[in-house]
């Protein structure tokens, strides 16, 4: 899958490969030590630059909704 920053693609693919293996083989089996941080940092730095260039940094990075009062209300119970 493509990255929002075309020059981030190689960093993304390396990170995704590491993460998918770690998630399936370690995390779901109870090992929670992150083994892909060294690949995530350069990938994240690259994506941040792409977000800045598109003026998306504020909207994307600084707001969380899941688990907060900002979630939309669920449908009324029937």
């Amino acid at each position, binding site marked *: 899958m493509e*990255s929002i920053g075309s020059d981030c693609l190689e960093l993304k693919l390396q990170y995704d490969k590491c993460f998918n293996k770690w*998630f399936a083989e370690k995390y*779901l089996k109870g090992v*929670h030590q992150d083994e892909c941080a060294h690949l995530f940092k350069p990938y994240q730095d690259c*994506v941040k630059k792409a*977000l800045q260039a598109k003026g998306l940094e504020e909207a*994307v990075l600084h707001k*969380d909704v899941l688990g907060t009062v900002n979630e*939309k209300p*669920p449908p009324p119970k029937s």
Partner: protein
Amino acid sequence: MVKHSTFSDVFNFTWNQVAIGLWQRYPNVYSKHVLSEDVISRKIINGKLHTKRLFTKTNPMPKAGEKFITARNVYIIEESIVDPKDKTFVTYTRNVGMQKYVTIEEKCFYQPDITDKSLTVCNRWAFISSSFFGLGRVIQTFCTQRFKQNVKKSMKGLNETMDKLFNPEANQHNECRKEKFKEKAKAAVEKAKIKTSKQMC
């Protein structure tokens, strides 16, 4: 003007398989409208994996809205929390930008079926709202229809991903297996509907 939709889907895969598949679902043959996918943040808090992802998707609009809304793509943020202990995978998805025209937010709960752990149930609800002057109802109806179509495509795409990962022989069209799953899925959806009302708060 607000429209709520609720859906239940069943996957013929274990919760672990669905959790693995959810990270690897793109690209697939049903995801032509998804242009990019990035992990924005990821951390483990009390054993739970918190992730924020950003997607770029194409943005077709109803004819009536085209002259007002010229953005060709829309940005979507997906926040998720995976709890491997309780086997829950919750996602919350929302559009960024374009909220002046329409707000689409969706929450999904992926959990093992209560009685058959070889199945995973996905309960989701969506909140679709548009207050755009004069066109709110048109945009909301259009987006609701498109959302429903995209949910179907999304489920097919996720199944395709999981078939490739865990069930490579599925391409050989095992009709017997499919029929058996259809029966199990129907029963699981009925159970999920009853359970959904308890979870949606």
